[in-house]
């Protein structure tokens, strides 16, 4: 190998090392992304802070998964919108949440990357009003939902 070839190899190897390092650092599990981007408000146990308008997950969150409007709402929750996660990461985190805190005997439809992308494209004018529209309808059907205090 001549010295020019060695120089080229060095550059290629250094680029490969950097790309590998970035790829390894960029990927996080759904559990880690939940803690990093959601648990600050919803807590590591998903309990939220009802008095501060942060709803609790355990036993309730699956109701939103099994409702068409509920799925749209979930994709427009401010924490989801502002999390800075990719569509595939959002679907993984949402599915992690429902698997962990949904009612144990209730079957739910998991999010796909495609559905996350599609629902995020749909405009939602007022996310609070959308939530009340969903919860009022579900309440009439006898579904119990957590306290929600936003005016």
């Amino acid at each position, binding site marked *: *190998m001549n010295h020019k070839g*060695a120089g080229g190899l060095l550059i290629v*190897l250094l680029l490969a090392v950097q790309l590998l390092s970035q790829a390894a650092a*960029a990927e996080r599990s759904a559990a*880690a992304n939940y803690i990093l981007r959601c648990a600050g408000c919803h807590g590591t146990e998903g309990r939220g802070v009802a008095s501060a308008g942060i709803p609790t997950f355990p036993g309730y969150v699956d109701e939103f998964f099994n409702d068409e409007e509920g799925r749209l709402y979930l994709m427009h929750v401010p924490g989801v919108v*502002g999390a800075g996660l990719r569509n595939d990461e959002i679907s993984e985190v949402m599915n992690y949440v429902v698997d962990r805190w949904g009612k144990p005997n209730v079957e739910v439809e998991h999010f796909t990357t495609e559905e996350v992308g599609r629902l995020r494209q749909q405009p939602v004018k007022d996310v609070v009003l959308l939530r009340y529209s969903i919860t009022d309808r579900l309440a009439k059907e006898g579904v119990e939902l957590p306290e929600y205090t936003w005016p």
Partner: protein
Amino acid sequence: MSSMMNRLFNLIDKASEKSTRQAAQHYGRRSFLARAGTVFAGAMLVPVLPFDRSLGGAAFAATTEDENDCSYWKHCALDGNLCSTSGGSLTSCPAGTEASKVSWIGTCRNPDDEKDYLVSYNDCCGRATVPSSTFCFTSEGERPGYRMGLHNDINWCMANTNKGYHCTVSVVLGVANT
């Protein structure tokens, strides 16, 4: 991953050594200096490769072991007064205050094991700040205010009954890559 890195670095070392020896045998020092000068001048014009300093990137490897120093690794994404210099400790609120119910969570690299950890920065609420306490503003991974979900310049006591900010603790929640 580290063994692969070691192999790559060994390969680079060997290639560098070989090419350096070959160059030394073929060129005089003046020739080397002339060419090196051209290379260094050219390198200044080449844009630096982007480096990911976001939450997904590796945190800076802090070296201090002093928990009361802002460069201590667990404080890498902190914005506030250290509770350890406000009458509390690294992980516990001072007497007369309560931990915030919501918090900022960041990612910090532990220089001892080179792993990234998720760290919760809970504010302690209910008393005025201690003037002599150490204020840290590292906030690694934070983004400007128009990215609200990624912004840490917030009083995390907002969800507590008593919203007065006192200081901030750094609590490790676990390894980031789990």
